């Protein structure tokens, strides 16, 4: 058992007295920051708050208690960790903390700016104070890092290399390579996000302007296309058969159907609509007119378009089943549905032109 120095004991006493204030500070500071990040729509991987435990503080004081004159010379008694997905967002969070809090620049570190002879993959730490209120003289620390920096830190902790005075050069090299790789991955993810945002804007503008053949078929472009409600006219025509209500339904699964048709761009989808709408209507009419069903899925037009297209392309029973397998998931009954559609279609005019 080690004997505690009188100075350490004094600091620990002060900590116990101040603990309720520290807890209050943690709550106030984290609420302020969390709300601001939410308002700015910054996606977070994690947001953690902690007040340093007495056990952890004792360990710290035993090692370097001589450095601290008073309890508030210890700047991380209250800690907030913000883990973002993208490296650009770490900078955004940093700007937000500067707006919300007073920063003690002397004690804040941007550990991301490595020195050439160091290795590691580190985060940005700000030592902050509330701008107003009775707790404004108590420091707290905000750590900002990306998810990959967080992973590095966790593994670093697990391996326990931190603090090692000297490592053999081959290990230093191995750590440096990994740190470089993660830093590159972080940069690439950020770049990818920027590129994807730009791509979305382009797709949106091309789709809105009706230049469909210039837009490759993708999840994003199909989603944008669906926002134009391209199947509404056909749906309304089909709904009119029984004065039916149209019930909202997801249609993204039809992207896989289009991929199976080998459609390359939205121009192919547009052409497919133009060439098959009348026949799709006839197919739906032949089924619904003999019923009093007055509720239909929003995908009704698109479903009939796909079925008609397959029949006209000579896909037959198994082509129809393949469409049902995609939209319904593989089910034994899909073959019966395909048989029924094929049978129904025999009566329709387009079958005589095949």
């Amino acid at each position, binding site marked *: 058992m080690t004997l505690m120095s009188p100075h350490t004991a004094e600091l620990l006493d002060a900590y116990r007295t101040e603990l309720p204030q520290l807890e209050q500070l943690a709550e106030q500071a984290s609420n302020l920051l969390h709300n601001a990040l939410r308002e700015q729509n910054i996606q977070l991987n994690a947001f953690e708050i902690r007040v340093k435990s007495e056990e952890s503080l004792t360990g710290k004081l035993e090692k370097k208690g001589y450095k601290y004159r008073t309890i508030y010379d210890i700047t991380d008694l209250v800690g907030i960790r913000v883990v973002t997905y993208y490296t650009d967002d770490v900078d955004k969070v940093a700007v937000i903390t500067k707006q919300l809090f007073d920063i003690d620049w002397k004690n804040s570190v941007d550990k991301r700016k490595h020195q050439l002879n160091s290795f590691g993959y580190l985060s940005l730490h700000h030592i902050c104070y509330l701008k107003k209120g009775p707790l404004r003289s108590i420091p707290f620390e905000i750590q900002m890092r990306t998810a990959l920096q967080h992973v590095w830190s966790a593994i670093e902790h697990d391996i326990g290399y931190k603090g090692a005075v000297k490592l053999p050069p081959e290990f230093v090299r191995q750590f440096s390579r990994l740190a470089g790789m993660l830093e590159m991955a972080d940069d690439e993810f950020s770049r990818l996000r920027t590129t994807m945002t730009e791509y979305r804007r382009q797709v949106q503008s091309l789709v809105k302007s009706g230049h469909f053949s210039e837009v490759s078929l993708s999840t994003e472009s199909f989603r944008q296309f669906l926002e134009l409600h391209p199947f509404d006219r056909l749906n309304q025509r089909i709904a009119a058969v029984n004065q039916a209500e149209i019930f909202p*339904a*997801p249609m993204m699964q039809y992207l896989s159907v289009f991929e199976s048709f080998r459609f390359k761009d939205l121009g192919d989808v547009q052409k497919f609509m133009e060439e098959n709408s009348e026949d799709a209507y006839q197919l739906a009419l032949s089924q619904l007119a003999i019923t009093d069903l*007055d*509720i239909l*899925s929003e995908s009704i037009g698109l479903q009939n378009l796909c079925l008609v297209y397959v029949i006209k392309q000579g896909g037959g029973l198994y082509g129809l089943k393949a469409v049902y397998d995609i939209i319904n*998931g593989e089910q034994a*009954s899909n073959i*019966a*549905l395909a048989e029924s559609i094929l049978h129904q279609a025999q009566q329709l005019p387009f079958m005589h032109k095949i």
Partner: protein
Amino acid sequence: MKTTFEEKDGKYIMHFEGRLDTAASVQTEQEMKVLHNCEGHDIILDCAQLEYISSSGLRLFLGLLKVAKAKGSKVCISGMNDNLRQVFAMTGFTHLFEFV
């Protein structure tokens, strides 16, 4: 039209028997309300003895699906015959449910 409810292996199961037409739908809607408290339970609609389903019946199933989805529960339809399956297919609702 007759329904019976049971809870089995953590799942809420409702058995349907007869014709779920407009006339039966008001009573059935009341009976199906027990399924709306489905937090933490997946739902099975056993339609093996269901002979007919009208638009009103479809609306009940769709309404339940909406509630269950919001509570994180799955809705499966079991034992439905091919004729009734056709009703779901021709109205475009097959892909909203899981058929077992």
